[in-house]
């Protein structure tokens, strides 16, 4: 028993899988964090991921090049972000309900587009995938080399981005503007910050980030797309922001925890432990709920969720 447990937990594979599974989550979460700090709640991350995943798959399949798939996902992510921004920033529609509508729309849209693009041969059309990039010099290290330095390029990138985001948030005027808009848009406007522009920019970026997260799922780890591929990862990403107390580092750690949970449940499944797989599959959701419970009232930016009209009273 103890030995099994040791084998289960004490392995490079588990760390490897944790990093791998954290990456798409963290992409979406960092994007969500950005617009959240500017005062826009984005529960639409799920749909945006889904859009990115489908686009990347279809374009990679048609063009025969996974990088073009990523490029297209970036573009579609930006468009979805822009549309969401039009709805919630310009029209000032309720952010939560609109995002739920957006998720329903994206679920349908990706289903229709998949059928239009691939027809009925879904599953028989593997797309080219993003290759693993071993970091020269480091990947050859014993033990840690294959675990830490032999991943998709996006795995390294996302951790760099998390650091960059912390820098941008706390060390640049841009970051100050974002935080000011999220805390007190009126005051931000008084000092000359264009609130609407900041919100648009961050929401568009959140769309791009989420789409990359989705694209990694479809043409990074798989070579295909299926309806509802993201399976709630966008919502887990959203929770990671809350559990991470709205900071880049916290979000990173929370995403790692959720990525680890997912890696662990897959590993337990592979080990053939006598737990019904249905319960293992939902482990990440349960852990996320517990994490939220432990986190208690994690306070978001003061203007979070509030629409804003410039130049009014």
């Amino acid at each position, binding site marked *: 028993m103890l030995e099994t447990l040791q084998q289960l937990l004490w392995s490079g594979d588990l760390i490897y899988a944790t990093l791998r599974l954290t990456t798409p989550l963290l992409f979406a979460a960092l994007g969500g964090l950005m617009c959240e700090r500017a005062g826009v709640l984005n529960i639409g991350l799920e749909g945006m991921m889904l859009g990115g995943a489908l686009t990347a798959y279809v374009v990679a399949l048609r063009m025969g090049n996974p990088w073009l798939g990523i490029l297209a996902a970036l573009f579609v992510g930006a468009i979805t972000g822009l549309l969401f921004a039009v709805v919630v920033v310009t029209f000032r*529609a309720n952010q939560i309900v609109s995002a739920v*509508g957006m998720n329903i729309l994206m679920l349908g849209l990706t*289903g229709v587009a998949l059928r239009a693009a691939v027809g009925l041969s879904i599953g028989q059309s593997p797309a080219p995938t993003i290759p693993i990039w071993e970091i020269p010099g480091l990947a050859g290290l014993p033990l840690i080399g294959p675990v830490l330095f032999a991943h998709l390029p996006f795995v390294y990138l996302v951790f760099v981005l998390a650091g960059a985001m912390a820098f941008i948030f706390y060390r640049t005027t841009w970051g100050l503007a974002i935080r000011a808009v999220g805390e007190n848009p009126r005051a931000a406007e008084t000092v000359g910050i264009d609130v609407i522009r900041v919100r648009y920019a961050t929401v568009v970026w959140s769309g791009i980030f989420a789409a990359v997260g989705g694209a990694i799922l479809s043409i990074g780890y798989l070579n295909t797309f299926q309806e509802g591929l993201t399976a709630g990862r966008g919502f887990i990403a959203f929770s990671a922001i809350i559990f991470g107390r709205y900071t880049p580092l916290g979000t990173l750690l929370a995403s790692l925890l959720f990525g680890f949970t997912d890696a662990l449940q897959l590993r337990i499944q592979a080990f053939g432990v006598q737990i019904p797989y249905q319960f293992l*599959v*939902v482990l990440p959701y*349960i852990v996320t709920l517990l994490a939220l419970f432990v986190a208690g009232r994690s306070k978001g930016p003061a203007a979070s*969720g509030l629409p804003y009209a410039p130049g009014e009273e």
Partner: protein
Amino acid sequence: MKSGLSKRLEGLRSIGLGQALSWTLPIWAVLIAFLAGSVIIAGAGANPIQAYVALFRGAVGNGGLVATTLVKSIPLMLAGLSVVLAYRASVFNIGGEGQIYMGALFAVWGGTLLHLPAGVHLPIVLALGMVGGFLWSAIPGYLKAARGFNEVIVTIFMNYIAVAIVSYLVHGPMRESGWNYQSRAVDESARLPIILPGTSLHLGLVVALAAAVLAHILLFHTTLGYRLRMVGFNAEAARYAGVKVTLITVLAMALSGALAGLAGAVEIAGVQFRLLEGFSPGWGFDAIAVALVGQLHPAGVLLAALFFGALRTGANSMQTAVGLPMVVVQVIQGLTVLFMMIGAAVQHYGLWRPARREK
């Protein structure tokens, strides 16, 4: 805390709860959604006009199809009412799907394990369905009211968990031997009778209509309903007025879950009789569009459910006629929700008023 409350208030106002929404708004939202949907259908390589004609014919083309539309509307009516009840208290319950599963599960337990005389069995089975939904949604209700959780996130995760529990049960303990992954069928005495001979239309329609009437009475003619709406409209003021906001919030969510659970139970007792994986095609999510298009009003919900029930029925024929997948329905629903929200916001804030006129 204060900011949280005023925030929630703002959220409600921006969907137009604080004022009567124009009754034409849902019609416009649906029309524009269909228009935008036609662009997407054309993009998918089908002829939108042909698609919509097939949709229409498939929904109400003959008596049998009308009956099917009605049957498909029943769970949407109940799930739509469920969303309304919570929404009125400013809780956004998108856990309908999980609550439907739990209601169905409890109903199947009652229908297969209890053996009671006809006339007693059925009401007990339906009541058990409500209990299942009630208990399952009381959890997110509590987490929101007492711990400040975002109910959208919690209910979504609980949807996954409920679906997993049912999946486990029909694969294992509840699996009928020799059959596919499904439970035993409920007793004859636990089934809803057909009310229109020769069709599949069952008594569940009457149950749904009665639920709408009761929901209307509860919301607008009882103290509980008054408090519930008060919490929804202005939680802070309600608290000052002595309303137990936490309790009302939990109760609103739990009652909402009971209605969704009833939707699951009615579907079991009226149509499917057994529990199986993928039991619901997503009624819990359809219910959001139903509730919004129904203007968060029980009578409106009935009409909206008929409309979306027709959409689901018609989508079947559309699939065979022009080769569009069923998920087109979701495209239209998602667009409808978005346009409803935009419409409500425009009505509330005015169009383009945000433009910097002062500058």
